[in-house]
């Protein structure tokens, strides 16, 4: 019984938290920009699935992790572009497009998986793996947990301050914030509203897809159709809780990563509850978190509203 609270378990939970946070955080960082500019990307879930599947299939077939990640990037950018064309240029309802993309990407991935692999679920050997950071990894207990992770984990967390700086200290970030709040004013100031939104949704698609790729290539080393299991939507919740601020989004992501880690820890620790029951908990956790933490103000005012110059005909 003592071992349950032993240092090994704590280290394992920390490591698992960081690993579990990564795909959600990655998707959430891109979604932060998309939502800040006024786009609600419900296709995020589908983009994650597409990224996971494409990276896995390509990596397996070409026997190259690099090409796997590359194809996930391409797929993510493409899906983001499709979302963009429909919602920005054609100004169609974002919710319908997002749902359509998710249904399409999700079923397409399952379909292609069946076509390519039949009923098998092959494992990609050589996937996963970690890179140790020399000195820091020797810190007792947490050293191994934090500094011995897959390179994408480091990349993801490193992106947090970068994207924060981008949002608040650069021209691009200023324009994103302006466009999401008052596109008419941004347009009058000469900002190309639609172009900014294209950039953010491309970023969103890219990060969501890479998040999925990390799960397939960096974390699990295989693909099953339901592996994303709502992480894309959890990312949307994380963005809301983090008030569209990359640092706060990071904390939100860690919160859910922790919840996910706890559920697997419970199974490992031999607590005698059925895995199905444990699997429910992260989603209940989301609802509780939404209840407790959401302050409903400060939504980007143009969220979900397509922009057309002179739409009011004044």
């Amino acid at each position, binding site marked *: 019984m003592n071992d349950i609270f032993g240092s090994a378990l704590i280290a394992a939970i920390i490591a698992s938290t960081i690993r579990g946070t990564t795909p959600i955080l990655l998707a959430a960082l891109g979604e932060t920009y998309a939502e800040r500019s006024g786009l609600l990307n419900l296709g995020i879930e589908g983009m994650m699935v597409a990224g996971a599947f494409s990276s896995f299939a390509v990596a397996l077939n070409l026997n190259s992790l690099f090409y796997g990640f590359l194809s996930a990037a391409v797929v993510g950018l493409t899906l983001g572009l499709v979302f963009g064309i429909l919602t920005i240029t*054609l100004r169609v309802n974002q919710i*319908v*497009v997002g749902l359509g993309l998710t249904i399409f990407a*999700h*079923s397409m991935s*399952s*379909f292609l998986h069946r076509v390519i692999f039949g009923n098998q679920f092959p494992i990609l050997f050589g996937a996963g793996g970690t890179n140790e950071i020399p000195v820091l990894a020797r810190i007792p207990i947490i050293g191994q947990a934090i500094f011995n992770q897959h390179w994408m984990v480091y990349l993801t967390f490193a992106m947090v301050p970068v994207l924060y700086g981008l949002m608040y200290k650069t021209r691009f970030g200023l324009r994103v914030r302006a466009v999401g709040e008052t596109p008419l004013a941004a347009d009058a100031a000469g900002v190309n509203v639609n172009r900014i939104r294209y950039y953010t949704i491309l970023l969103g698609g890219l990060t969501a897809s890479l998040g999925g790729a990390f799960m397939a290539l960096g974390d699990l080393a295989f693909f099953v159709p339901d592996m994303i299991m709502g992480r894309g939507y959890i990312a949307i919740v994380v963005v809301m809780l983090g008030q569209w601020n990359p640092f706060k989004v990071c904390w939100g992501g860690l919160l859910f990563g922790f919840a996910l880690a706890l559920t697997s820890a419970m199974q490992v620790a031999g607590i005698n509850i059925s895995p199905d029951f444990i699997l429910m908990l992260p989603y*209940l956790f989301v609802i509780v978190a939404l209840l407790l933490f959401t302050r409903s103000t400060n939504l980007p005012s143009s969220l979900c509203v397509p922009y057309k110059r002179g739409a009011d005909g004044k």
Partner: protein
Amino acid sequence: MKNINLNALKPAALSIVSILFSLITGGIILLIIGKDPLHYFSLLFARGLGTSLGVTETIIKMAPLMIISAGLLSCFSAGLWNIGVEGQFLIGAMLTGWAAPMLSAALPYPIYLIAVLLLGITGGMVWILIPAVLKARADLNEIITTLMMSWVAINLVTWLVKGPINDLATVPAQTKLIPLIYRMPPIPFTRIHIGLIIGLISLLATHWMIKRTTLGYQFRVMLANKKAARHAGMNVARLTVYGLLISGGFAGLAGACDVLAIKGLFQGNWNPQYGMTAIPLVFLARLNGWAVIPLSFFFSFLAVGGEFVARDLDVPAFFVHVLEGMTLLFFAASEYFEK
């Protein structure tokens, strides 16, 4: 002779075009993976529509689609997006699977039927209650909350079926099999159960509700301009709860019908994923109850045909969902021409 209003036909035409485009694109996808699309589609039509088995199966499968669509119609007309219908469906189905064997012994047949269906409706409503209240009180996005509840449901029912409500007499985890005499009665002279009638009634009742009642009128104002609804004194919070509860109830009812009529029991790890079909369907039908009928026939036939053809041509049944997703995307694109 009355002049046909071409403008009124435009929405229907756009929906049909969306379907055509997705079929064509689907064909291209089949080509890319090395299958013959013409062969596939002709076999699909032959199996789905050509045989009496196919047609019957299609009509049977229509029922849950129509019921869920009725539920989606109700809430979409109010601008409420109940995307987690699958969770409510499963809860209704599970409750039915669990309670039916017990109730069938205790109650006379007609009362038992009604009781079991009511149970399904209640289950669906209970399951959407939390998202409904959260939306009404705190304006929490119902897409996320219903989806989260849906994932909870998927795992919850599996856990329950493997545990407390398991019929230990059988090896796979499932509830006690409902004997044939206690299933949903068929329409006289056919093999089709009355779930179809329930579906038709649900759709038409919903359509009527939306167009002709004060409740439906308030829903429509909510969708078109929530600010105006509030300003006029409509109780938007209460309407939100009503709209979501109604749609949850229908989803639960669909689950009950499915168990009662088709499966006769409830299994773990079973999710026919009607939501993935019903959501694009209702959009394509432009929120019109009458249009849902032919569309649900079409989608049901695709699914049934897809199942049959899957075994023969080695094209997974998932393909149908791919078509559904593309249809929704093409439909979304076609909205551009609506403007």
